[in-house]
């Protein structure tokens, strides 16, 4: 599965003033009051507005000053990703990101980068995920220029020193060798492959062979063809003066020439595959069955997104408040970690899933509860109370999306990266507030499909396939030593 970007609807809802159900305040109550009867006025808060500047070479910069602490944080989001990996070199993007960080760059050798950063306690990271690359720099404000010089050097002119590449390859191979150690890791990866297919950019995995094949030239080429100033968005927050910061950024990034930025495009899974229910398991010596149950879902731009997100919230997305938590954990005591998740983005089909870990003998019961709870979502309206609670939780926790300058800027960067309008947040918020029980039911009927469920289980013993057989024909997945 791809990484889920850390921004919720709640996070996307713009710079609104918060409204809650509200009236009187009980603050003056002199005793241990009944918390159930308490009401409060809405939280009013207008978060600061970051500034957006575009440099001549197309580099976009969001800036927000925050002088409370003597720290500066810079993030870079880059239009690259492992979706661009050639099929015989899966792992190239990830390796490029890793060695951009460790292999030296600009006027700095790899060793100098490490020494210098750790001398002044600067944090610097670079990584390339499935749909984007990201880098970050976090320094005390007095060290900003030293930090920026290294940061820009590694992003623009990574040296990819051979010894560091060799080390990164060995580490990647060891990571592959250890993929089958944890049942939780196995079930997540196998489930993604089950949904998208093992060769799809949203699920495919590197192999020892594909890593061994990578050369320094491959990394240089991947970096050169995919990372450009006009494909990068910077988010800058902290203790600086805007004009000085822009001058510093121009100094290190200003003379970087534009290039051709790859347009992010990931193909959809064929409808025939998408609709097909599958039940599979991996035999591993464990005390629990590790379960993922779900199917592919919509994109964030889908008109049903908000209704489905609220349906999922009520079903299993909201932890304590959700039906699955109450049913499987609280009432039945069958799992510690149980819930559902709707992970959607703009660029590939989203995933909707339910998850739990439960002792072998409860496997069938837990899956049975999953199915029963979906059926209930599809056949009955949610209660007025459930919908009200979901809306209130969402509106009242909204302020936490602005809990830091970096959260505010980060959100705008993500929206721009995904090609979403700045007022997208506002649009979603309005939809949530207007949502009716009937909308939730319609979304659940259309998008939560028991007839399409894909079930992945990791567990032990002959009893597991028997427990699963109630839900369809069971396939065993045999893992190779490297998955």
């Amino acid at each position, binding site marked *: 599965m791809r990484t889920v970007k850390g921004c919720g609807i709640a996070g996307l809802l713009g710079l609104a003033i918060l409204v809650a159900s509200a009236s009187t305040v009980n603050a003056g109550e002199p005793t*241990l009051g009944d918390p159930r009867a308490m009401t409060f006025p809405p939280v009013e808060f207008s978060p600061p507005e970051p500034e957006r500047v575009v440099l001549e070479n197309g580099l976009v910069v969001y800036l927000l000053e925050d002088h409370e602490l003597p720290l500066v944080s810079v993030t870079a989001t880059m239009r690259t990703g492992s979706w661009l990996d050639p099929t015989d070199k899966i792992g190239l993007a990830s390796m490029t990101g890793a060695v951009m960080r460790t292999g030296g760059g600009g006027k700095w050798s790899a060793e100098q980068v490490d020494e210098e950063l750790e001398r002044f306690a600067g944090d610097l990271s670079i990584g390339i995920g499935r749909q984007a690359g990201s880098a970050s720099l976090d320094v005390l404000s007095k060290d900003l220029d030293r930090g920026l010089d290294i940061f820009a050097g590694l992003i623009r002119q990574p040296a990819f020193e051979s010894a560091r590449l060799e080390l990164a390859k060995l580490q990647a191979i060891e990571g592959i060798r250890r993929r089958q150690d944890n049942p939780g890791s196995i079930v997540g990866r196998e489930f993604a492959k089950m949904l998208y297919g093992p060769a799809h950019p949203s699920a495919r995995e590197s192999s020892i062979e594909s890593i061994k094949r990578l050369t320094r030239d491959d990394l240089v080429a991947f970096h050169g063809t995919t990372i450009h100033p006009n494909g990068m968005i910077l988010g800058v927050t902290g203790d600086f003066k805007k004009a000085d910061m822009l001058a510093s950024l121009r100094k290190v990034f200003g003379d970087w020439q534009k290039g051709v930025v790859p347009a992010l495009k990931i193909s959809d899974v064929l409808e025939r595959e998408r609709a097909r229910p599958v039940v599979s398991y991996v035999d591993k010596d464990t005390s629990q069955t590790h379960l993922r149950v779900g199917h592919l879902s919509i994109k964030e731009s889908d008109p049903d997104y908000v209704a489905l997100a609220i349906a999922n919230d009520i079903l299993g997305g909201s932890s304590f408040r959700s039906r699955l938590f109450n049913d499987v954990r609280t009432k039945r005591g069958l799992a510690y970690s149980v819930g559902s998740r709707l992970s959607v983005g703009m660029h590939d089909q989203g995933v909707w899933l339910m998850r739990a870990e439960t002792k072998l003998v409860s496997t069938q019961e837990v899956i049975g509860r999953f199915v029963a709870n979906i059926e209930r979502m599809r056949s009955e309206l949610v209660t007025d109370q459930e919908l009200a609670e979901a809306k209130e939780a969402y509106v009242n926790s909204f302020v936490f999306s602005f809990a830091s300058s970096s959260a505010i800027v980060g959100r705008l960067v993500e929206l721009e990266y995904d090609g979403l309008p700045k007022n997208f947040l506002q649009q979603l918020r309005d939809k949530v507030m207007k949502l009716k029980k009937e909308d939730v039911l319609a979304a659940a009927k259309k998008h939560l499909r028991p007839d399409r469920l894909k079930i992945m289980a990791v567990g032990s013993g002959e009893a597991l396939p028997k427990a699963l057989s109630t839900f369809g024909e069971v396939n065993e997945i045999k893992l190779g030593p490297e998955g």
Partner: protein
Amino acid sequence: MKTQPSLVPGEVHLPWGRLSRLVAHISHASEVRFTNCALHASRFTICSVVMALSLVFHVNASSGASPSFADRVIEHRLANGLTVLMVERHQIPVVSINITFAVGGINEQVGQTGIAHLYEHMAFKGTRIVGTTDYEKEKPILDELAIVGTELDQREREVAAKEGGALADDRTAVESLQKRFLALQAQAAQYVVGNEMALMYQRHGGVGLNASTGKDLTRYMISLPSNRLPLWAAIESDRMANPVLREFYKERGVVMEERRLRNDDSPNGLLFETFTSAAFRAHGYGIPTIGWGSDILSLTPAATEAFFKTYYGPNRATIALVGDINPQETIALIERTFGRIPAAPPAPSLVTVEPEQRGERRVEVEFDAEPAIVIGYHKPTLGHPDDDVCDVIDAVLSDGLTSRLHQKLVREKRLAVSVGSDASHPGVRAPNLFIITATPLAPHTTAEVESAIYEEVERLKQEPVSAQELEKVLNNLDADLVRGLRSNSGLASQLALYQALAGDWRYILTSRDKVAKVTAADVQRVAAQYFTRSNRTVAVLVKKSLSKSVTAMSGNEVQP
């Protein structure tokens, strides 16, 4: 400091996150949480996982941090002994609150391990007001359920002990108790309003609701829009005074699943459990915080309630609030809510002292997973000057890419894929362990990694650490201190943590100054004194051999 397994192809899954300096109880191997928040995080819900900040905030004039920071901490002590720490921060209308009780696994008795953690789960079940539709009717049923459940547990243990020898009468008795038990459980369930406390917090915009139990402390956290503080005070003062242990047996089942998830099915969870229990043979630090499975299954409502009464008085609690608050109003609110709770009598003091280790201990854990190793040395804890020296050694050995173990084992010799250390495993209220962890890079073995680690340990004894290394340690500590101030929840956590552990939140500042005074000679002396063969415990994760079945299948023999 927990790292979720990453799914990025080619990325190395490090079995241990960066172990935090000093903050021992946050070490992942010994801490258990009420709910694994990250697992529920979605794009839709906000789920702020309270981070274990690596120690620290400090206000060091030379680093340029606001020099008045220490002055911004407001302290208040209630007549019942409750300690309140506050920091005003008005940029955003939110507040983060951390309630920390000086109780944890260290306070448990033999046969009742896991009770501190089970109580922490039960603390989410409500009170006489919250979580019930009618407590008066519910109470007698809960009382009877506890009696029947306790008897049932006992009878079942007896039958199990007799194995095949159990009489038909015994089994009949168990069956009838089971019937009665289930009927009572169903009756009690009629009055339950499930997860009502959590629901109220969520409705009012609360995020990051969670709790954690460690060897030393048990902590409860929440962040709220700041005008909801009266709601928080009503809920939490009620929970501190009048918890009701409803849904007890179901929650015991949840905790068993948590144990399976964290320890039984996790190679590193099991490795740490085995390692720590080998290192401590007498002291409670050797017991996994989550408890031994058989103990969890025999915990009773009566024992759990008694544990609460003994250890959860306001006099053992610290509340830290950071955010958009008015200290005067906050104190008044806390006085008229928590102030009504009577102080608890002093809890029994800790008795057992770990005897001196007289010889190396080695243990193995077999698992269907690639190898790993943990090495630990007994050492004194917080308050002893050598503890600060160990913090410096910890940073020199494993903090960052230029640290000694990383440079030698990972980069130069390429024996390990990752290394780590921690100066305070698994807690700090009692003498603890300095641990070093490593994950070998195949085909290198744990034995090769182990001897390379000992070379570095010997080097600490033979050569003085350089001035640059010491300077780097301090620079990073100072920067971490400033970074630790960034989030309300992180700061609240730090303040409550040190107040509860060291008796004074200012320990954050004084420990920095003690670290600054550590010399190269101190490092050599401490390394020579504690890092000895006879004082160490070594645990190795060994790949469970599949060779048995492979051998059986070889020679074209086909098993039926």
